[in-house]
């Protein structure tokens, strides 16, 4: 800002880009720090950390559509499942690399998401009705996958385990840090896309529409177009999470792809961390992932003090659902959202 004559428009753009730049710098720092995790964290915790990254990716995807664009999706399992099954089918039937499946799955999921949302918006479904309709679509995909011989019905699809490491087919030694780095890069990419989207014009429009559709429309914003853009991005990100899920667990079945649990896995971290915030989904996942895994572990092998919890299956989900209720009731902006508000004041 050395120039003496700055037009107001330029100032605004400069401010916005410095905001985005700050986010990008934070992101790079976070990624670099997390990059070294596999060398520090004990091997036994890697599975938990990888699962945490997968749900973080789902939460980031869900947050774009349901947080920033304000269309509460209760059926994001559709897009996760599309990604997962795209990868499983393309790999087992045609030997196509998972890297390619990420793009195919993302494109398919974005297409389906656009179609579903377009229909919902065209028929003016909002609020609870929108949530119910997306949920109904998830149930339909679940039922179809359970009855379709092409995807092995309820038995699901196993990805054959390779004898050697292969970058092309995304298989590595069981303790390889690459299994952590790939989802880390995906999460970083998803956050970068979110930053780019919210600081771009279309992201500003989408948020304006969320806050007041009538005002936005009267300013000449095309409601349908700027609602559909975040939907496509959101569905694509969620599908990539599905692709990686299959590559890591080497198995997919209808319930793991399209079940209500899948949708919940994406929603809960975003809500606990803070909807409509950039870092909320990641922070929520970082809290929920290790917490549930830790409790499940204690239930399996309790220390002597907690001997009574042995075999209490369900304690992990019970704690996480109690946490969800508490956060929604007492911290409606989520953990990160509330802290940010406190700091800004």
């Amino acid at each position, binding site marked *: 800002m050395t120039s003496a004559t700055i037009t107001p428009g330029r100032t605004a753009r400069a401010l916005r880009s410095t905001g985005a730049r700050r986010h990008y710098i934070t992101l790079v720092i976070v990624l670099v720090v997390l990059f070294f995790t596999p060398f520090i964290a004990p091997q036994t915790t890697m599975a938990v950390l990888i699962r945490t990254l997968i749900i973080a990716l789902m939460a980031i995807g869900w947050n774009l559509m*349901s947080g920033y664009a304000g269309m*509460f999706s*209760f059926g994001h399992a559709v897009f996760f499942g599309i990604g997962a099954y795209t990868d499983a089918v393309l790999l087992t039937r045609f030997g196509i690399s998972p890297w390619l499946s990420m793009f195919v799955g993302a494109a398919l999921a974005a297409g389906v998401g656009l179609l579903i949302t377009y*229909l*919902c918006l065209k*028929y*003016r*479904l*909002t*609020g*609870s*009705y929108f*949530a*119910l*309709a997306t*949920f*109904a*679509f998830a*149930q*339909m995909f679940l*039922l*179809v996958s*359970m*009855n379709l011989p092409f995807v092995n*019905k309820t038995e699901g699809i196993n990805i054959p385990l390779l004898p050697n490491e292969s970058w092309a087919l995304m298989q590595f030694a069981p303790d390889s840090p690459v299994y952590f780095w790939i989802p880390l890069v995906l999460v970083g990419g998803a956050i970068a896309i979110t930053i780019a989207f919210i600081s771009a014009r279309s992201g500003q429009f989408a948020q304006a529409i969320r806050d007041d559709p009538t005002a936005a429309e009267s300013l000449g914003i095309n409601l349908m177009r700027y609602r559909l853009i975040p939907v496509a991005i959101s569905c694509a990100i969620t599908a990539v999470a599905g692709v990686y899920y299959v590559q890591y667990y080497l198995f997919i079945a209808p319930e793991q792809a399209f079940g*209500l649990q899948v949708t*919940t896995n994406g*929603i809960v971290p975003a*809500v606990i961390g803070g909807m409509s915030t950039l870092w909320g989904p990641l922070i929520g996942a970082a809290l929920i992932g290790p917490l549930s895994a830790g409790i499940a572990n204690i239930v399996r092998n309790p220390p002597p003090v907690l001997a009574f919890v042995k075999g*209490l*299956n*369900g*304690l992990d*989900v*019970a704690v*996480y*659902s*109690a946490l*969800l*209720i508490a956060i*929604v*009731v007492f911290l*409606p902006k989520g953990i990160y959202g509330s802290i940010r508000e406190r700091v800004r004041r």
Partner: protein
Amino acid sequence: MSVDVSPPKTGPTEPATPRGAMWRSGTLRILLGVLAVTVIGLALVYLLGGKEQSLVTQGVVTGLLLGGVYALVSLGLTLIFGVLGIVNFAQGAMLTLAMYLVYFMVTTFGINTYIAVALTVPIMFVFGWLVQSVLMNRLIADGTHERPLLVALGLALLIVNVLLMLFGGLPETVPSPAAGSIRIFGAIADVPRLIAFAGALVVAGALILVLRKTPLGLSIRAVAANGTGASLVGVNVKRVYAMTFGVGAATVAVAGGLLAPFSSLVPSVGDQFTTLAFVIVVLGGLGSVAGAVAGGIFIGLLQTIGALFLPGSGSLLLVFAMFVLVLFVRPQGLFGVKR
């Protein structure tokens, strides 16, 4: 805030008929509409379906009885979703909770199953009342639908998993005092299912009476029609909300109790009903008791008759396709009046 009982308003405003008359004509319309569609559909299946008659008759009887069960579960939801606007995803979990309460009483104190049902009803009423007054009333003030939905989702997970911790995941059975089956037109009908069907009709009748003839019903309808207006004329809206959720939970208690004798009891037993109850409530028209009964029976028949033609869970797919279609084209319910 205003409670959104009516679906998105698209048509012209309602004609100036007294509210009571509209309720009654709406009910009649729903019942006649569902009856007509059902009769025509069944006639087509009998004449053109190409299936054995006895098979279809058995399907009809099974479907009717299944529909009774569905109706019973949906009655509570039509109040909670219709009046409070809460997408209560805990409906199925509350059903499971009621079933386990009955199971617990029967196995611990050795009392008759149906007496246990009667004892479960007030417990569930208090439970529902507490959920609304402690949790939901805090959220409803800011008018968003997401926070109640998220709390209901959390509640559903919490109930199911606490039950899993307490009772384990192995299937349990509740002894039925009235076992056996009878034959209707050559088709077999289990007595406990017949009792559940009768229970659905009784609960629906009682609910209609409560809504139309009692001061509580009057305030519930007033709050549903216009929350701000009701509070201006001295209705304690939050109290009415709590009572509504309580009544909704109490009807679920009846449903759970009557279902328990012919269900294999696991903590996830209620999950399937949550989705179906939403389908039925939207199909029948929000807040309509008669619509919930008609919708329940309609979906029960659709599912069992559909199963004759579509293998596996394909008939459920039919149900959801129907649901989405209704959401898109007739959000006021299949035979509901546009308001």
